[in-house]
């Protein structure tokens, strides 16, 4: 299954529910386009819900890093929610786990935005 995105608004936080595979090609470009659209619209608080992401490769990891940099450079915040064990393991292996602000509860994640 390729990646699927569903965007919703919780207060002033844009939540993107991501499911499927974030891999080189359609998966990573779909996520990139969605995030750039939010940034272009001026969204400053973005929460990526990765709870239904079954698989992510090095290209997908690169997209997460790129998204973090893009949002941060625009003056916003990008946070991650509901990492699966596989995604968490990958972020830990690559030492990126501490770069991202990771949450296990949507409520606490939404509240954590300044």
């Amino acid at each position: 299954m390729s990646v699927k995105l569903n965007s919703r608004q919780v207060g002033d936080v844009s939540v993107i529910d991501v499911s499927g595979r974030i891999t080189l090609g359609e998966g990573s470009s779909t996520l990139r386009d969605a995030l750039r659209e939010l940034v272009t619209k001026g969204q400053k608080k973005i929460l990526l819900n990765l709870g239904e992401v079954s698989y992510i490769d090095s290209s997908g990891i690169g997209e997460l890093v790129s998204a973090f940099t893009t949002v941060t450079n625009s003056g916003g915040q990008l946070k991650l929610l509901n990492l699966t064990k596989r995604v968490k393991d990958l972020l830990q292996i690559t030492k990126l786990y501490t770069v991202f602000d990771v949450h296990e509860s949507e409520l606490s994640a939404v509240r954590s935005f300044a």
Partner: protein
Amino acid sequence: MPDNSRFVPRTVNQSLDSTLDSVDSAEDLAVGMARSAGFGEDDLVKIGMAVRESMVNAVVHGNRYNSNKKVRLSVATVAGRFTVRIADEGEGFEFEHLPNPLSPENIMRTSGRGIFLIRSFVDEFQIRRLEPVGTEVTLVKYMVSK
């Protein structure tokens, strides 16, 4: 670790186009053979990712999607070793001097983690230049405790 007692040696060789579809089919083949050999889900994910990253390197960075160039794939379950070889026909790269993706200056790079991840997921990893052109990687996952 898989039960080696019911293991049947098997080798599959394929010549693949330089496309992302080939990346998917190579991953599917390797994971399917690994599953048949008795690997568990965690190892299947690691094998699949290692093969996928290697195929992406071959198709994208090696052959640069060139339709005239092929990727040779060999998957073998022999003598307690699950071995995958992937060879491209590209011009190669300086794999001896790859930047460390864990270094602070590289941690926020958007690429350069593929080979690091491959090494993390398999028990043995070799890379060599082919003559006159090309690069071959060999991935080995042990089927029994060593």
